[in-house]
C-alpha cells in the first residue's frame, strides 16, 4: 500500500526520537520545556512552544506507531494504542474507560467528533466556578485557529446507516439533531478511526503538531512512563521516566532524567493527577485528582430488518443535544445522544449475557444498530465525579455512580429505545445484564422502568476522562490557574482536559485544543520574555 507515512518519513529526516524501552543506559536530557503527554493538550503545546523557538522534549507513555502499522484490526489496536488494552476500569470495575496510550494520545484513536465547548458549559464555569477568561468570545479565536490547523469542518458525506437511524428516529419524534463536524482531510469514510487512521486523513496530533514540533528540533521520548517529578522548593527541577513495555507493569532498568526551565503536564485526567500524587507535589488543600468526570455512557442495541453495517463509514456524524438543552444545566442530569462504531470485539463485550442468548445477537451483527448516551456529570452538587488514587503505585479512578447519575441513565435508556423504535427497530435491548430484548416501545418502557440501576448491571463506558486538576482562581478549590499555571509550583503547568472544572457535555478534543493552545501561547510569551 502506498500511503505515505509521515512517521517513517520524519524518522528518515532525522527526528530526535528515543524509544525508552530500548535504552541501554541512563540518559539525561536538557531542554527549555518538558511536555509530558502527546495527546490533544501535549501535541498542541509542543508545536506552539517549538514554533516560538523553545527547545522542547515530549515524553509519551505509549509507542510511536504510524499509519503503516494501522491495519484496522481491534486485536492489534487495543493492546497497542490504548491504556490497559482498552480495558481500563474504575476502581469498582463498573465503568470501562477507553483512553489512548500512544503518540498522539486519544487523538490517534478517537472518532474525530469536533465540538466547540457548549456555551452553557462556559456560562456554568463562569457562574459556579468563578472563571473569568473562559468565555465564548475570548475562546472564539482559539477555536477558529485550531479548526483551521486541524481541518475541522462539516463532513461532506451522508451519515452511515447507524448514524442515520439516530437522525430518522429523532425526526419522527420531533427531536432536533445536528451534524457532527470532523477533523479530517481526504477521509475515505472507512470507519476505523478508533484503530488509528490508515490513510492519515484524521488530523490527529500524530500527523500534525507532533511532526511539526519534531521538524523544529523537538525531542520525543516514547514508551516512557514518568515515575516522578523532583522538586526544589516551589520549583520542579527534573522529571524522571522509565521505559515501558506492554502494560507497563515492569518498569525498565534505566532512568531517563529530563531537566528544564518549565514543565507541562498533559498526561490526561488520570495520568496528570497521578504523576502529581506519586511525586508528592504540594497539595495543601487536597484537591489534586478530585472531581474527575467521565461522561458516563450507556448503550442501547437494536435489531433492524435492513443491514446497518455500523462497522463501516464515519463512526460519528449525527448527534442530538435535545436531552441536554431541554433541562437546566444544574437540574436533573442531561445526556448527549450519539452513535458509536460497531466492531466485533466492542460489540461482543458490550452486549450483555453469554452463551446462546449472546450468540443470537452476534449472529445478526450486520443488522445491529447502537446508540449511546453520554451523561453530563459535574454540574450538580450530587454529581461530584470521581477521584484518582494510587494503589500499589498504579493510578486508579474511584468513581462511584451516584443516584443522580443513575436517574439520567434510566431516562437515557428510555429515550434511546423510543428513538430506535421510531426509526423502525424490530427489537431493542438496553445493554444491561437484567434486560431482555423487547419488540415494542410500550414493552421497552415497562421493562426499562423495572431495571435495577446498579453498578455492574448496567454496562457503563467512558471515552472522555476530564477534570482532576481543575483550573480556578482560588487555590483552595483549584490545582491550576486559568492560565494553566500550578498554584503551588512556579514552573509547572497543566495543559489537558484535567483542567476542566466539570465535564463538558460534548466530545472534548476541540475544547482541549483551544484551551491548551491559548495556555501554550501565553507560556511561550512568558518564557521568551
Amino acid at each position, binding site marked *: 500500500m502506498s500511503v505515505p507515512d509521515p512517521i517513517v518519513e520524519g524518522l528518515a529526516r532525522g527526528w530526535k526520537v528515543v524509544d525508552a524501552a530500548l535504552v541501554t543506559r541512563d540518559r539525561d536530557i536538557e531542554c527549555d520545556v518538558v511536555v509530558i503527554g502527546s495527546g490533544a493538550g501535549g501535541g498542541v503545546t509542543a508545536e506552539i512552544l517549538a514554533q516560538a523557538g523553545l527547545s522542547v522534549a515530549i515524553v509519551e507513555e505509549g509507542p510511536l506507531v504510524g499509519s503503516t502499522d494501522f491495519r484496522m484490526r481491534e486485536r492489534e489496536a487495543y493492546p497497542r494504542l490504548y491504556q490497559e*488494552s482498552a480495558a481500563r476500569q474504575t476502581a469498582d470495575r463498573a465503568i470501562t474507560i477507553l483512553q489512548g496510550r500512544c503518540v498522539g494520545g486519544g487523538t490517534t484513536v478517537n472518532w474525530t467528533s469536533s465540538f466547540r465547548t457548549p456555551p452553557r458549559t462556559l456560562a456554568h464555569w463562569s457562574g459556579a466556578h468563578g472563571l473569568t477568561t473562559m468565555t465564548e468570545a475570548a475562546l472564539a479565536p482559539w477555536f477558529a485557529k485550531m479548526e483551521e490547523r486541524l481541518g475541522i469542518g462539516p463532513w461532506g458525506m451522508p451519515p452511515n446507516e447507524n448514524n442515520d437511524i439516530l437522525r430518522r428516529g429523532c425526526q419522527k419524534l420531533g427531536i432536533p439533531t445536528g451534524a457532527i463536524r470532523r477533523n479530517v482531510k481526504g477521509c475515505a469514510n472507512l470507519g476505523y478511526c478508533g484503530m488509528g487512521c490508515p490513510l492519515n486523513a484524521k488530523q490527529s496530533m500524530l500527523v500534525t503538531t507532533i511532526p511539526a514540533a519534531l521538524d523544529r528540533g523537538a525531542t520525543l521520548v516514547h514508551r516512557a512512563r514518568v515515575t516522578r517529578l523532583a522538586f526544589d522548593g516551589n520549583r520542579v527541577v527534573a522529571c524522571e521516566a522509565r521505559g515501558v513495555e506492554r502494560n507497563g507493569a515492569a518498569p525498565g532498568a534505566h532512568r531517563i532524567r529530563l531537566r528544564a526551565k518549565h514543565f507541562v503536564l498533559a498526561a490526561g485526567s488520570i495520568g496528570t493527577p497521578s504523576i502529581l500524587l506519586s511525586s508528592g507535589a504540594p497539595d495543601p488543600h487536597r484537591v489534586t485528582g478530585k472531581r474527575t468526570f467521565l461522561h458516563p455512557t450507556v448503550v442501547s442495541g437494536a435489531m433492524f430488518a435492513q443491514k446497518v453495517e455500523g462497522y*463501516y463509514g464515519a463512526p460519528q456524524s449525527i448527534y442530538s443535544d435535545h436531552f441536554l438543552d431541554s433541562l437546566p444545566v444544574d437540574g436533573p442530569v442531561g445526556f448527549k445522544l450519539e452513535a458509536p462504531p460497531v466492531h466485533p470485539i466492542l460489540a461482543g463485550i458490550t452486549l450483555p449475557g453469554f*452463551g446462546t442468548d449472546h450468540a443470537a445477537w452476534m449472529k445478526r451483527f450486520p443488522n445491529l444498530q447502537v446508540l449511546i448516551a453520554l451523561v453530563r456529570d459535574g454540574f450538580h452538587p450530587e454529581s461530584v465525579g470521581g477521584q484518582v488514587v494510587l494503589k500499589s503505585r498504579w493510578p486508579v479512578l474511584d468513581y462511584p455512580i451516584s443516584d443522580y447519575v443513575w436517574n439520567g441513565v434510566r431516562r437515557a435508556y428510555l429515550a434511546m429505545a423510543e428513538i430506535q423504535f421510531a426509526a423502525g427497530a424490530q427489537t431493542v435491548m438496553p445493554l444491561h445484564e437484567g434486560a431482555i430484548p423487547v419488540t415494542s416501545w410500550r414493552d421497552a418502557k415497562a421493562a426499562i422502568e423495572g431495571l435495577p440501576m446498579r*453498578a455492574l448491571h448496567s454496562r457503563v463506558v467512558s471515552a472522555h476522562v476530564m477534570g482532576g486538576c481543575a483550573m480556578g482562581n482560588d487555590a483552595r478549590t483549584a490545582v491550576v490557574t486559568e492560565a494553566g499555571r500550578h498554584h503551588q509550583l512556579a514552573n509547572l503547568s497543566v495543559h489537558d482536559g484535567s483542567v476542566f472544572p466539570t465535564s463538558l457535555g460534548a466530545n472534548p478534543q476541540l475544547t482541549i485544543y483551544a484551551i491548551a493552545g491559548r495556555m501554550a501561547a501565553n507560556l511561550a510569551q512568558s518564557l521568551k520574555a
Partner: protein
Amino acid sequence: MPTRRQFIKVGIAGAAVLATVRWLDRSEAAPTANHRFLDSGSVVMTAALVPVVLAGSLPEESAARAQAIREVVDAFDRAVSGLSPLVQKEVDQLFSVFRYTPTRFAFTGLWAPIEEAPAAKVAAFLTRWRHSRFEIQRAGYQALTQLIQASWYDNPSSWAAIGYPGPPRLP
C-alpha cells in the same frame, strides 16, 4: 436473586476465604511455556469456561471446535497480560478460588473441578454471579465472560458466522 443462605455464605466467609486463598497461593505456579500469564491449571480451567461462555458461537465440527478453544485460551492469555497489574492480580485470585475445593464450592457451588463439571452447572454459576447482589461476583462474571468474548471475536475465524466481512481494502 441470591438466597439468604448464599448471602451469609458469601458475606461472612468471603473475606476469610480470600485471605486463605492468598496464603495458600503464595507459591505461585509459573506460566506455561506458551503463555505469559496462565499456568497449566488455569489453562485447563479457561478451556472449560470457553465452550460455556461461547455456547452457540463456536464451530460444531470437533477438530475445528478444539482448535477454536485453543485459540481463545491463547488470546485470553494475551489479553490478560495486557491488563493492569491490579486486574491481573484479581484474575489470578479468581483462578485460585476455582482451584481449591472449599473456596470453589463456597463461591460457585461447584464441588467438582470446573473442567470436570457439567456445562449446565458452570453456566448456572455464571448466571448466579451475573445477577448476584455482590459486586465482587458480578465483577468476576464480567471479567471472565468479557475476556473470553473479546478473545473469540478478535479472531477472524469467528467473523463469517456473524456476517462481518472484515476491514475494507484501502482505496
